[in-house]
């Protein structure tokens, strides 16, 4: 690493990263400290002490990641991907089961969650595949292959089972769309979600009636404008709707697990049995309720560092991990939460901006993947903590306690920072060569 390389690094992204990690640690400190009287921040028996170690190790990782030749990531993306898939598969033999999930390799002092690293590996593999001049994502053949790349880790992660983490891989759809995937997929996805939710709320019959009316109106409207309209796709759409819609209830009742059903019922306010409802509220709804109340009690400027009464009282379960944002809300108030959200958004938009600036398609796809994955994590996590989305247990990147998560996100981000820094290098090399 020489001076010119240091100058080429996008320091803005690096600063945003460290800011988020720092703010995250401050809040982990606050939510896991047991008494306020002169405890050392290096108390490694505490979450905040451990997290400090993880952050220290991350810094070493960053240096390593940046030191490795940028070409390495593209060249070895296939192998990295295969190793990652193997590690996901191997978990069922060598892994450790915690709270019903087989997602960890236990190394004594720390554990590794291969699912977290699979995101980087998949992003690299997809970038490599899409940047191949042979690949044209507009065609079904290539789409299928791309979906396979994404599907393999999803398959293993679903087996763990960790549907929350698996869901994050859907972020790649946006990456593929950017690279030319027909918009039908997005529409179909959106349509499925709407169909699913509306069927649960209104029932299959009414949804089919509504879709039928909608299609008929559309057909008549086109006719009046004297435009040709093919009836076949419309009928197909209607039939698909009917089939999907009528199978939603079955899927929901038989494929989904009870705690998933409860979460969705609570979210969509579908549960009307008061006994069952209060039970859900006490179990799954409890987290959301406590987290919302904690955030709400923060008010405009918050209660101040270490002054969050609900944080201190340990009212919000999993507050140092998935619910870390509720500490921000309680102790730093609206001002603090807004700043954190803006920092995230700034980072995401910066990543998208950098990606679009890439000369190599590989770097662009990879950068896009980073932004999309971080965005999914951000949206699902904060949406859950502030009570807008159903409970899905995934961490807030850079914020939540946990070495595996922090390192995986660091790896994901800094590989792109390396690619980005190198890209300008390539361009300069090229420039010099011409002269």
């Amino acid at each position, binding site marked *: 690493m020489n001076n010119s390389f240091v100058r080429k690094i996008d320091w803005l992204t690096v600063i945003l990263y460290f800011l988020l990690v720092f703010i995250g640690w401050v809040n982990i400190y606050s939510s896991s400290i047991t*008494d306020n009287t002169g405890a050392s921040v290096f108390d490694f028996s505490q979450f905040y002490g451990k997290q400090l170690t993880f952050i220290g190790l991350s810094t070493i990782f960053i240096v390593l990641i940046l030191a490795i030749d940028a070409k390495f990531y593209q060249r070895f993306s296939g192998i990295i991907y295969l190793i990652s898939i193997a590690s996901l598969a191997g978990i069922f033999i060598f892994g450790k089961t915690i709270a019903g999930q087989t997602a960890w390799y236990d190394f004594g002092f720390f554990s590794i969650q291969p699912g977290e690293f699979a995101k980087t590996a998949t992003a690299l593999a997809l970038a490599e595949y899409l940047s191949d001049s042979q690949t044209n994502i507009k065609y079904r053949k290539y789409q299928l292959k791309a979906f396979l790349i994404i599907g393999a880790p999803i398959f293993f992660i679903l087996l763990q089972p960790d549907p929350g983490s698996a869901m994050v891989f859907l972020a790649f759809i*946006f990456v593929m*769309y*950017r690279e*030319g995937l027909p918009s039908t997929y997005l529409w179909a996805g959106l349509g499925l979600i709407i169909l699913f939710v509306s069927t649960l709320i209104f029932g299959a019959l009414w949804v089919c009636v509504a879709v039928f009316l909608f299609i008929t109106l559309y057909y008549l409207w086109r006719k009046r404008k004297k435009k040709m309209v093919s009836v076949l796709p419309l009928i197909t759409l209607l039939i698909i709707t009917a089939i999907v819609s009528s199978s939603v209830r079955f899927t929901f009742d038989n494929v989904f697990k009870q705690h998933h059903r409860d979460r969705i019922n609570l979210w969509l306010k579908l549960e009307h049995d008061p006994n069952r409802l209060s039970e859900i509220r006490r179990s799954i709804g409890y987290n959301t309720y*406590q987290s*919302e*109340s904690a*955030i*709400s*009690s*923060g*008010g*405009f400027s918050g*209660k101040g560092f270490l*002054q969050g*009464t*609900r944080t*201190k*009282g*340990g*009212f919000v379960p999993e507050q140092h991990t998935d619910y870390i944002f509720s500490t921000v*809300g309680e102790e730093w*108030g*609206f001002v603090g*939460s*807004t700043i954190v*959200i*803006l920092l995230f*958004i700034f980072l*995401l*938009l910066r990543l*998208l901006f950098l990606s*679009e600036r890439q000369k190599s398609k590989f770097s662009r796809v990879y950068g*896009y993947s980073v*932004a*999309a994955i971080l*965005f999914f994590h951000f*949206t699902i996590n*904060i*949406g859950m903590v*502030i*009570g*807008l989305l159903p409970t899905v247990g995934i961490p807030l990147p850079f914020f939540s306690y946990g070495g595996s998560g922090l390192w995986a996100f660091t790896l994901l981000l800094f590989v792109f920072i390396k690619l980005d820094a190198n890209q300008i290098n390539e361009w300069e090399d090229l420039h010099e060569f011409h002269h």
Partner: protein
Amino acid sequence: MRKLLLSSIIVIVTLIYLGRLSYLQLIDNTGSPLDDTAIKQVYDYPERGYIYDRNGKLLVANQPSYDVMVIPRDVKPLDTLEFCELLNITREDFIKKYEKARIYSPRLPSVFVPQLSKEEYAALQEKMRKYDGFYIQKRSLRYYQTKHGANILGYIQEVSDYDLKRNPGYRPGELIGRQGVEEYYEDILRGRKGVKFIQKDRFNRDIGSYKNGLYDTLPVPGKDIELTIDNELQTYGEELMIHKRGGIIAIEPKTGEILSLVTAPNYDPSLLVGRKRSKNYTKLYYDSIANPLYDRGLLAMYPPGSPFKTLTGLIGLQENVITPESRVTCYHGYSYGNRFMRCHCASGTVNDLRRGIARSCNAYFASTYRKIIEKYPTSAEGLTAWEKHLRSFGLGDFLGYDLPIGKAGNIPDSDYYDKAYGKRRWYATTNISNAIGQGEILTTPIQLANVTAIIANRGYFFTPHILRKIDNKPIKDKKFTKPKYTTVDRKHFEPVAQGMFEAYNTGTARGIRVEGINIGGKTGTAENFTKVDGKRVQLTDHSIFVAFAPVEDPKIAIAVFVENGYWGSRYAAPIAALMIEKYLKGEVTRKDLEKRMLEASLEEEYAKPYSGKPFRINE
């Protein structure tokens, strides 16, 4: 378009999230850190203030009481048989109480057995350690040093749901004053509870003081109060009223201080303390015949009868329609139009004002009343002038004393007669019974005592009150320390006072003479009715007497009502005389009167309407 999709979604999500956060933190936020569920408030209750009488005798103190509390979650298997024996409860009680506490909350303390006696506590105290999850909590209850004046003192009770709704300063389980001074001076007696804010965790365990006690407050003890009541006089009055119903109100005219406020029948204030309170209260409450919870001195409205004649005289003088020397000949009554009002004067008796009062001559005051009303162009104007004078005596409205209950009484105004008879369709003769305190006029005993105090003061009064000192400092409330003047001039009072003195010397009250005390008095009777099987039935008249003494320098003004006691000098006057002598001399010389009054019982009279048989009255 493809390049912008993700960025657009990111921006939209951000806006939605910021919107949600503004709702949660800026709109839905309650603001106060003290509303926080993570903060527990622990209260430190101060001792309630003591109550003394005007001579410094302690009437009401406090005594510790012990509640057995339970935290169901902490209860470990125990020897229920032994425990139940200690607490004097059955096994079924135990299970019922435990279930009730558990349903309320497994983690929070509930009262298991309330208000143990000292003996029960002593027996239980050392064995308590054996029973995990149970502990004893000390509370403070009232300790009465007197058996009298329950109607004045009131009692304390756990706050009701209604109190909690009306007054957010109270919390469930706290005590509140009911009736009497306990209710009226609740804020002074109660003091202010101290509060400690404790940070707790989600298991409701204490994890330390919130913000190092920044918001904590210390309890402010309740203040001691001294009442205007003379406990000896009060006690004596209650003894005199045994087996009778009615009230005695004694006021110190120079200050408006209420010396005694007797209602009969009464009850021992200790009945309403502790575990037996609820049972006893129910018993008192449902005694709808004797009605011991009904404070007759403050609430009973009677037609005042003859004592009212003094007021007619005073207004006559003020309105210049009579002079003290004006004479009226009584023809064993008074005829007006084609009607006749009877009087017990012999036919042809000539009375001036003094003798009119002394002999309680109906004709004299009927004629005076008629002159007052007819002085004005219309009866309405005349009655308005009359009514205005009466109101300045504190009649027809609440007196404004410092006890929580009262009645306004009634003084009819011209509107009332306009409505009843039509405008200009009524005359002085229409309502001439007003002259002698009958008809529509209603007064409470305390109002009548106050009128007597006004005559004793020759024209002014202090609003009667029960509170003398707070923490040994005399009260400064202008409402009670500023004299109120009536619309009748001072000079007119002397003849009336002399008339009352003559009633005592030679008139209707001569039988109660007390050696060495000049008493001004006025007897009265009031007709009254009840319903038996839905029919209006007349009962024996109420015996009424008002008096002040000594006439030359009054120290006490008194009104006595004895229900169904017949004429004024039969019961009310002797009782008033005994009270006056007791107060002024400290002892009673008229032992004959005392014996007669203490032994007299009207229970037979009171039983008449309930006997189911026809009965005779006024015998």
